[in-house]
């Protein structure tokens, strides 16, 4: 069986930052493996480890060459091989929208024909939370969104999942394969890559594809969203900051808390 895991690299913004036009100045960005995808990779690797059958775990990433460092993290955690898709024209887009990403990933699915696709619920930076479900629809797979428990016996027709809804309620569902599941944090305990894993990752296959290799062309991609403005939101609240060193700040907060009758 084959599991395809989508892996994104996300930008984390420093405490202090500047906006340069429609982007955050790159000096204030740190790139890392998307938190939700980390759980998706772990889930796939565990599926492999817990099954007697052979499970191949393949990662798919839309991103420039820079992202290969992040992709190697997923390989170091146990994925078998990786696919990276990029076209320089994509760098010009202000936003890679979910339908465009789904279109590209669908072409990867076409090549790989996986039984199960795991994506993160969302990326930490743009947080559209839509690519996995759009992909499922595009490739005509079933799907389950926001999955925080997965019970699947390799070879079975259906997977048993819990979907995390709002308010501490989970939906229990059976989902027919092939399917796309969007994976929620907390579903497992993602491992840290071992030194051995990191070493092995260097020699695992990481194939870079252009759009044309997948039968796509940049002109045909939807790219229907355009960022036209980016700013720091005006804070509506009138938060009162306590100033001074930690002790002074704590003393002022203590006065406030005593005023409110705390610890009395």
């Amino acid at each position, binding site marked *: 069986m084959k599991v395809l895991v989508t892996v994104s690299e996300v930008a984390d913004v420093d*405490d202090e930052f500047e906006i340069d036009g429609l982007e955050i100045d790159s000096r204030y960005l740190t790139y890392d493996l998307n938190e939700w995808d980390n759980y998706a990779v772990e889930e796939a690797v565990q599926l492999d480890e817990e099954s007697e059958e052979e499970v191949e775990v393949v990662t798919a990433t839309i991103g420039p060459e820079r992202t290969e460092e992040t992709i190697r993290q997923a390989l170091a955690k146990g994925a078998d091989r990786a696919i990276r898709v990029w076209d320089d024209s994509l760098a010009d887009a202000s936003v890679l*929208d979910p339908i465009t990403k789904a279109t590209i990933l669908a072409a990867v699915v076409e090549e790989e024909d996986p039984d199960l696709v795991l994506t993160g619920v969302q990326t930490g*930076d743009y947080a559209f939370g839509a690519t996995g*479900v759009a992909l499922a629809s595009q490739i005509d797979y079933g*799907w389950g969104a926001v999955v925080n428990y997965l019970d699947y016996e390799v070879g079975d027709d259906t997977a048993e999942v819990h979907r995390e809804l709002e308010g501490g309620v989970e*939906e229990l569902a059976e989902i027919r394969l092939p399917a796309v599941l969007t994976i929620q944090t907390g579903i497992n305990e993602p491992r840290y890559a071992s030194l051995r894993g990191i070493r092995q990752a260097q020699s695992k296959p990481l194939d870079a594809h252009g759009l044309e290799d997948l039968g796509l062309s940049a002109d045909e991609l939807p790219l229907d969203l355009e960022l*036209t403005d980016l700013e*720091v939101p005006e804070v509506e609240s009138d938060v009162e*900051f306590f100033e001074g060193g930690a002790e002074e700040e704590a003393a002022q907060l*203590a006065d406030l808390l005593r005023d409110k009758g705390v610890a009395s």
Partner: protein
Amino acid sequence: MAVLAVAEHRRGDLRDPSFEVLTAGRELADAAGTELHVVVTGGDVDAFAEDLNREGVDAIHTVDYGEEFNAEVAVQAVDQLAADGEFEHVVVPNTVNGLGSAPAIAQRLGRPIATDAIGVDVDEGLIITRELYGGKTEGTIAVDGPAAVVTVRPGEWPAAEGAGDAAIEAADVDIDEGAIGTTVTGFQEVGAGDVDITEAEVLVSVGRGIEEEENIVLIQALAEALDATVSASRPIVDNEWLPKDRQVGQSGKVVTPDVYIAIGISGAVQHVAGMKGSDTIVAINTDPSAPIYDIADFGIEDDLFDVVPALIEEFGGDVPDF
């Protein structure tokens, strides 16, 4: 032409965002100069339709299929309703089930999707405002094309009220049962435990800023000194540093204490959903751009590892080793 809003329900009740999406949908319909229609799939659709018939709604389409909201049924229904081009924008709540269906609706209809809008407008096409980078920035996004799918953030629009005079009709759609790959077998409540954080008057809430499991003792010591209860943001519970019954937020508990002290918590929308109703909110966070400060009443922009021990001492508590 019309705007189509998608309603959502669970275990026999329409969910609050279903009424908010009517308000957002009406706003879009006004901006586009068109009607507002609503579709509700599954459950007691007649009773739901009656409830959704609020001011500003022009028509309600019901699809009587199954008990619970099923994303695939909703997708099929909207796909068929909108196939004739009658609907331009489709508006869906940005909820778990909304995000479980809207992207597939967009894909089926061959339309763009923009999610988690906190503002909507129509110019040549749809324009939305939304947060980016964990609420540190806000962006305006222009959606290309005459028709789009948009999900709207819960709590951003008021619920539609007042009696409407919408035309209610059973929609002429055919749900293909064979194409539905998901069977809902039940529901389960999680997070019941010994401590009920919703009853606490003072909550000391800890987030990822605490860095290590070993440091949680610091927060526990503070809670003890303040005679307060410990709660947490999601990563702390995901890491199993505290049990699930301590989680505040969209998928945890909704709390409304007199005082909520957020320590090393950024204030992501899913967290804020669970604590914004607190009387007094205090935030201790080194990041001045953290969105928690948008809703805090008092703040300390400093290192929690300095402030918390000092605060424990203020109340005569023992500062543990951390």
